[in-house]
């Protein structure tokens, strides 16, 4: 049995904000199934008492002083924006 069905691929695509044609869903379900099947070799290992590593460095939160500093101007921040108006980013309607 396939580990990831075409329907699941379409569901994941929806979560990932990607459109998916039937042909693409066919291709990705086969490829993802192969990759996930390969990843299942990790189940050979007993990891019950192993702590997960999210990060190799011993990380701790660093807080900076709450000071106003110069950074990008509004104009600079919007320089690469595809559509803008009055210093704001313009997008299609969110509500009907």
């Amino acid at each position, binding site marked *: 049995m396939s580990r*990831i069905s075409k329907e*699941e*691929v379409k569901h*994941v*695509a929806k*979560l*990932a*904000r*990607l*459109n*998916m044609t039937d042909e693409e869903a066919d291709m*990705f379900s086969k*490829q*993802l199934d*192969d*990759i*996930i099947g*390969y*990843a299942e*070799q*990790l*189940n050979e*290992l007993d*990891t019950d008492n*192993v*702590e*997960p*590593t*999210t*990060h*190799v*460095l011993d*990380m701790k*939160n*660093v807080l*900076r002083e709450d000071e106003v500093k110069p950074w*990008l101007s509004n104009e*600079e*921040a919007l*320089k*690469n*924006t*595809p*559509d803008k108006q009055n210093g704001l*980013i313009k*997008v*299609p*309607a*969110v509500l*009907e």
Partner: protein
Amino acid sequence: MSLFDKKISELHELLHKKEMKVSELVDASFSRIQQVDEKVKAFLTLNEEEAREQAKYLDSKMGTDEMRGLLFGLPIGIKDNISTKGLRTTNGSKLQENFVPVYDATVIQKLKEAETITVGKLNMDEFAMGSSNENSGFFQTRNPWNTDHVPGGSSGGSAASVAAGEVLFSLGSDTGGSIRQPAAFCGVVGLKPTYGRVSRFGLTAFASSLDQIGPITNTVEDNAYLLQAIAGHDPMDSTSANVDKQDYTAALTGDVKGLKIAVPKEYIGEGVDEDVKNRVMEALKVLEGMGAEWEEVSLPHSKYGVATYYLLASSEASSNLARFDGVRYGVRADDAKNLLELYNKTRSEGFGDEVKRRIMLGTFALSSGFYDAYYKKAQKVRTLIKNDFDQVLDKYDVILGPTTPTPAFKIGEKTDDPLTMYANDILTIPVNLAGVPAISVPCGLSNGLPVGLQIIGKAFDESTIYRVAHAYEQATDHHQNKPNL
């Protein structure tokens, strides 16, 4: 002999003695690009006008006491996922083909302080995902040694441009081997520093817990110079390590007497090409002849590295790439009727298949019901892989092996099968998972294509890696082999 066959220190001496001008170096770079880049296709964007202007400005500083930069006047190429103010930065993606950053990455600021000259931006696999450069949204970069073969990925443009003599050195980024693998395939020197050694501020995030920027050069000495310029703590990057920088050029002593080398049996076992294995064994004999000692060891969880990496890197990528939605920057899809359609159309039209595949894998691994089975499991295996390295590096100074199981493969040979392509990174990936530093240096040829020797070190001990790599390079002449373009 081309100017670019000289080491940084030699060119610097010529500049300091006023026997050469910065403009001549920059001219040499652009004329070489004009001569060979049609074949190699390493560059996505050239910075010709600004580079020439800057060269003139630096020429005017020559002979004055303002001539202070560590890399004064030397032409460099930059991988196209590093932010360069005013210079197009595409991430190798159609989605970002119009993007002109408004700020410099910290490494670019540091290079500006060191007074390098940015010649242009280099081709890469889209969003740094790939081992062959076949996933660039624009065109395929070719291996300068044989243009039917891939240059490696994802920093393929960075490695090919140095191997082809178009620039003196370049910057790449390495998430699972993306500096070392193309360096090995193109016969140049590439270092992935310790995670946290070089600031990631201004590097487009792919898998944030693994990505590192690093130098690609012709020689180990040049590599040490470049790391010297870009390393250091950066308050703008919360994952930057507050650890003292070593003096990397001072480490190039040529002495490896008494040094203890570990050779993992998994790195010279099944799946590794016979020729590649032989080149590595020859390298070991060279180092042994210089007084180093070596022993076979085991990194028993290495074989789980690729599976672990693809789950973790894809999960991080699916989250990091959520920001590319056509709203604030990049190319926006036309005629979207509402906001959701805008996101979906922009991402579907803009991303290539490899990027989509990894976003899908990551979204799946993080989704409800699968998180513990895939993502969390992979994080636990990451711990086991890291422990393997810690235990070996406790007893030995460095770990040594091949960089890749085979030399550069042919263009198109592996594109239909993502899993076979992923297996190419089996020897580089565990190093990123463990966060330790590693370098690839040329160690000879196999059927006319370069083979890379990988030297892995303790966290924040790039100096020892450089010491071993430099001693080996001095004792051999592999780095003097050049492709015939």
